[in-house]
């Protein structure tokens, strides 16, 4: 009897030990897992559970940077999630959609076709001549797409379809295999995952880029309607994506977002157009339409900047809104989170317009109209021979007056009222009505000019004894309240601008 009691006690103790051990291991797995995937999709699960997703945007990093659900909500009251994945080829996008559809059934799926010309099945093999670093990068990028989905039959099927090597398949199915070695890079955020407080993407899956590509590439157009030479793996999966949506009664819109498209990219777009035509779904090739300014709205040759993203989202939003019966959720208290997200985004754009490190970026953000701006360029400034600078000014003013003068030049943009005032050479501005006040401008001599608001004549905004050698000034103010937000001075020399 005593022996049995002891055995029973040992068994109970062993089970208790194994339970505690399992708990510790589970906690370790949570802490050590790379947070990128969870960061991107955390809100997706929450919104999908609340059945609040009208539209899913899927595709590659072009989608991540081109579509901002916050803008879509702010403009049209349509809810959406950006499911784009870095380096996502069409087959990865297909499985991403399959996974997402387990949690939500949107009214519309917008699928981008960039990378459709890729003609390989397995992301760990790619092409025969792909080098090791490309393969590694491809595998790592797939982790961003796949890590967040729980292990089930669908995930196993997806990984087997995307990855050839069985050992690499395992690292997707049991990601602790790769992430256990993150112990030497853990941060506070990793531990906060234990309490569910880890950081999450504030833009509903999108990522905004704040750079500006001043020298985008332009490539020859293919022959009219010329398509890719081969039927690619990407084309096959585009067809599967469309079929999947049609099977689920989900509207599909196929897109090709603006970028410095190569001739091959344009052929891929033509191929996509052909497939869409055959399958009776709309195709929107935004490279063919005057939606963005290629000189100011690209972050790099491949990806849109935040300004490009706002324009593209507004454009595709219009198409979506017209294509179906979408409820405007903007005044619905249940959707307050979405409005908070939109407000957060526009506040950020406003902050960047008020205080950017780079004059090009600041001018670019000012063109978004989130803040009022007064831009003064003194005569003799090198800005007058800078084509990029002129283009950015034109995006704010809507005119080409800046290109026609050698200064002095002043531009007052008052987005609250929608008014734009310009003056150059010896011209005066008398009584420009803005949120900043009723403004008066008069150039006197090279080192002296006057800008004051009615009722505050002693305050000359454009003169400062200590800043006489600065030839460019940018004053920003709150578009509604008129409070001054920033006053920046820049000096142009040798094609550069120094604050």
């Amino acid at each position, binding site marked *: 009897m005593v022996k049995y009691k002891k055995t029973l006690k040992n068994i109970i103790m062993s089970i208790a*030990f194994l339970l505690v051990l399992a708990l510790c291991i589970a906690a370790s797995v949570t802490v050590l897992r790379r947070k990128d995937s969870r960061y991107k999709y955390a809100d997706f699960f929450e919104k999908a559970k609340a059945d609040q997703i009208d539209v899913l945007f899927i595709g590659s990093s072009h989608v991540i940077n081109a579509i901002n659900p916050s803008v879509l909500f702010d403009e049209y009251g349509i809810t959406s999630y950006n499911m784009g994945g870095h380096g996502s080829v069409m087959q990865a996008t297909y499985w991403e959609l399959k996974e997402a559809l387990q949690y939500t059934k949107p009214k519309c799926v917008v699928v981008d076709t960039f990378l459709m010309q890729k003609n390989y099945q397995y992301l760990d093999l790619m092409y025969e001549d792909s080098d090791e670093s490309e393969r590694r990068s491809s595998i790592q990028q797939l982790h961003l797409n796949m890590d967040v989905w729980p292990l089930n039959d669908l995930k196993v099927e997806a990984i087997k379809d995307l990855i050839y090597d069985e050992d690499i398949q395992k*690292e997707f199915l049991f990601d602790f*295999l790769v992430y256990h070695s993150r112990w*030497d890079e853990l941060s506070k955020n990793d531990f906060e995952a234990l309490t569910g407080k880890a950081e999450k993407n504030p833009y509903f899956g999108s990522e905004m880029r704040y750079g500006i590509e001043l020298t985008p590439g332009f490539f020859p157009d293919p022959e009219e309607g010329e398509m890719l030479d081969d039927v690619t793996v990407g084309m096959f999966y585009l067809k599967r994506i469309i079929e999947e949506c049609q099977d689920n009664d989900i509207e599909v819109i196929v897109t090709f977002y603006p970028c410095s498209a190569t001739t091959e990219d344009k052929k891929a777009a033509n191929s996509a157009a052909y497939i869409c035509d055959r399958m009776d779904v709309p195709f929107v090739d935004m490279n063919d339409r005057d939606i963005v300014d290629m000189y100011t709205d690209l972050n790099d040759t491949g990806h849109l900047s935040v300004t490009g993203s706002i324009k593209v989202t507004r454009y595709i939003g219009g198409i979506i809104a017209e294509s179906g019966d979408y409820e405007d959720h903007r005044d619905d208290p249940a959707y307050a989170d979405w409005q908070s997200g939109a407000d957060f985004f526009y506040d950020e754009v406003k902050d960047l317009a008020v205080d950017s490190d780079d004059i090009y970026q600041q001018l670019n953000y000012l063109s978004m109209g989130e803040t009022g701006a007064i831009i003064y360029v003194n005569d003799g400034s090198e800005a007058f021979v800078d084509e990029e600078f002129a283009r950015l000014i034109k995006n704010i003013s809507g005119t080409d007056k800046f290109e026609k003068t050698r200064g002095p030049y002043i531009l007052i943009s008052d987005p609250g009222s929608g008014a734009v005032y310009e003056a150059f050479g010896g011209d005066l501005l008398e009584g420009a009505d803005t949120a900043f006040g009723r403004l008066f401008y008069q150039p006197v001599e090279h080192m002296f000019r006057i800008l004051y608001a009615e009722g505050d004549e002693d305050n000359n905004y454009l003169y400062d004894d200590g800043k006489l050698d600065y030839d460019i000034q940018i004053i920003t103010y709150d578009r509604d309240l008129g409070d001054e937000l920033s006053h920046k001075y820049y000096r142009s020399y040798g094609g550069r601008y120094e604050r």
Partner: protein
Amino acid sequence: MQFVSFGFLVFLPVAVLINFIVPRKYRYIWLFVTSVVFYLSLDLMAFAVLAGTILVNFAGGLLIGRSAFPDKEKGLSEIVTAPDKTADRRSHKGTVLFALLILIDLAALFIFRSGSIIGAIGISFYMLKTIGYLVDVYKGSIRPEKNFVMFALFVSFFPQVVSGPIDRAGNLLPQFVYPVTVDFDRLREGLLQMLWGYILKLVLADRLAIFVGAVFDAPGSYPGTVVFIATVFYTFEIYCDFAGYSNIAIGAAKILGIDVKKNFDVPYLAASIPEFWRRWHISLSSWLRDYVYIPLGGNRKGTARKYLNILIVFAVSGIWHGSGLTFLVWGMLHGFYQVIGYLLKPLRDRGAALFGIERSSFSHRAIKVIVTFMLVNIAWVFFRADSLETALVVLRRSLEFTPWAIFDGSIFAPGLNYRNLCLLAMGLLVMAVVDIFEYRGVDIFGRVIAQGIWLRWLVAIGGVLLVLICGIWGPGYDAASFIYQQF
């Protein structure tokens, strides 16, 4: 299925559980089945070599036994202690057969070890077991095993088959006949020993290997002090690697009810090279002593012959480790260390007397331990290097004194960042503490088990998490990377 694989972590509990249920007298059959499964999972073709070895040596043992024990005394696996009488009764035919079998075994060892026909995993280890068995039978020290399964299990016992320890028939066969009961304490002790083995291997040895591999691949690219540190790291790497393996093997055998003799006994606290060899890879050292050194005459045939025998034994040891010249140099260096040690002994004695050195003092012993460690360290350079030229470059570079390399960031160049080096330093410190306890005769695993539940659980859970989190494993990891598995 390697020790460091998910498959083994599933296989072992199943083997242990069923072993616990199977009646004691049939357990050897179950252990044989598990050993076959284990080996087949390693390499199907190599199993043919193992099976051939078992068959030939089983039959050979019986035939030799007939000449050694013509009166066919009763009993299986029975140890007798009358070799002198039996020696006289051996027939000439038995001697020829014995010599022939030894030659066949040695030929098989060298042929299949090279991998040119079939690479037979663990052949260097299980072949020494069978040769030892044949010698013991021939000498009449043990009776030939008549139960085929029992003999086959002796050769193929899975915790030992890949890299030892090279156990003796006299130790294992009686245990297979009557394995001890695995109670809760034994289970815990075995598992704890295995856990310690995994820590040594995955957390320390494989982490050290990153640094060592980078430096030995391009010794000219690193400052002298970094190269010197790499040589010291290798000295620890090979210890952690092999002792780690041995702990896993011994722990696994323990939870199956079999006690395997220990393979290491704090070797780096040895105060002389002969002492080092009494503590390092004990199963091989004692095998070479019993089956090579003593048959050659040992120290019974004069001083010169003793020195020659030592050199022969270490040459054999070097060749056993590998066909490269570097292994021969490594073995010979150890041989010369010992011969020179003996030659200098009168001089050392006189010096100690002249300067009044208290040889039993801690300070004197510490110096001896350090000198022994450095001699062993130098020899390991040849063991690790791909060629003699590389070994000489490593040794030459390690003499260049560039301590600033520790502070200017060069120390991180061979692939371990600051946090990894800190972890390594802490790990080696813990290992040193455990070794010092063991050196002083403290049963560290027994001590842990005797503690209260919270401390026991803390140690066990901490150890498992340490291996899972800080162990070097995952994609790209070679589970067959135990250094001694290649021999």
